[in-house]
């Protein structure tokens, strides 16, 4: 595939980089990334991956755009209120870069749907807001040997890690089980600074780009945490667990399953699922 003059100009800042070059940009254009959640994290991820020319981007979210989303979900505008988030996201992404094919999935991602959903993608990004979804995405990606980026944001904090099959622990190795209901507030209860989605979501987009071009070190076996109030990043080394229930030597989880989502997390009309109750 040869670049058009327009592509050479659009992607010039990438092609100029030694680590990307024409080859890396072609890898991006041939890359397929799935973003689960079109909210606070999913918005910047989708914007940057579309702008970067990732060839096929899937985006999954059941919700519609709500006024309370717009403080952080920068891919949607006031005019999009009431529209399906995946549709609104797709329109913005294609307006930025018509090179990109956007696949929309207006579904609730659960044990019944996730295996088919992730199958065709090279890299999966968790931009969801609840533990049930995070464990589900982890288990499905481990079972299908798909690399993925996990992240969560709450108040002034955020965290992320990357799973690559065979190269480090999975999310379940580290966190084992969802916390008891109400042990940790959701963003809806606790709030979150909108820019937090920008910081952490952009880091997730960066992981996806590095994975696709095959350069640099990913956050495999490491959890990166960010505290905006103290302006501290910490990178914590994560041990793998041989007895992990999904990626260990004798896994007890052999197919994805759904945890019960706490009632307050269940989607009220027009509300969103984008933030994680993580930290």
């Amino acid at each position: 595939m040869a670049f058009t003059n327009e592509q050479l100009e659009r992607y010039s800042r990438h092609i100029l980089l030694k680590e990307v070059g024409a080859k890396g940009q072609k890898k991006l254009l041939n890359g397929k990334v799935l973003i689960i959640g079109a909210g606070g994290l999913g918005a910047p991820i989708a914007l940057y991956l579309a702008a970067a020319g990732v060839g096929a981007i899937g985006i999954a979210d059941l919700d519609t755009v709500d006024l309370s989303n717009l403080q952080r979900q920068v891919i949607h505008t006031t005019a999009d209120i009431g529209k399906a988030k995946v549709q609104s996201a797709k329109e913005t992404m294609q307006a930025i870069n018509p090179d990109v094919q956007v696949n929309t999935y207006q579904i609730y991602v659960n044990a019944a749907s996730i295996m088919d959903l992730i199958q065709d993608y090279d890299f999966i990004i968790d931009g969801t807001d609840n533990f049930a979804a995070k464990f589900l995405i982890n288990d499905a990606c481990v079972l299908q040997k798909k690399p993925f980026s996990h992240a969560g944001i709450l108040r002034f904090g955020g965290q992320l890690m990357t799973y690559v099959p065979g190269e480090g622990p999975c999310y379940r190795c580290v966190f084992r089980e969802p916390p008891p209901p109400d042990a940790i507030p959701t963003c809806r209860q606790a709030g979150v600074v909108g820019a937090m989605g920008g910081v952490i979501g952009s880091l997730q987009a960066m992981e996806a780009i590095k994975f696709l071009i095959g350069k640099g070190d990913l956050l495999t076996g490491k959890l990166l945490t960010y505290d905006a109030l103290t302006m501290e990043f910490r990178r914590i080394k994560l041990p793998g667990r041989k007895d992990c229930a999904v990626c260990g030597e004798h896994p007890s989880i052999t197919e994805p399953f759904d945890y019960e989502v706490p009632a307050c997390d269940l989607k009220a009309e027009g509300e969103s699922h984008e933030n994680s109750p993580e930290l």
Partner: protein
Amino acid sequence: MDIKIDENLDITDVVCPVTFVKTKVALDELDDGQILAVRLNDGEPVQNVPRSVKEEGHQILKLLHNDDGTYTLLVKKVDDE
């Protein structure tokens, strides 16, 4: 010394940074040791493109002054991967 040119590129119709972007893309398409001849304008391109090519690890063989005021840069591709 006779130099066998494997590929020609004209970047006199574009400006920075597309000048170098096009050169880089053309070099990416070549195999280790192949020679690219780049026709470029005087001024900014002739100041910057050879330097950028060198920074990428390729070997500059010659910079020839053409009669029409342009230059021809002969680059040998060095593939360090």
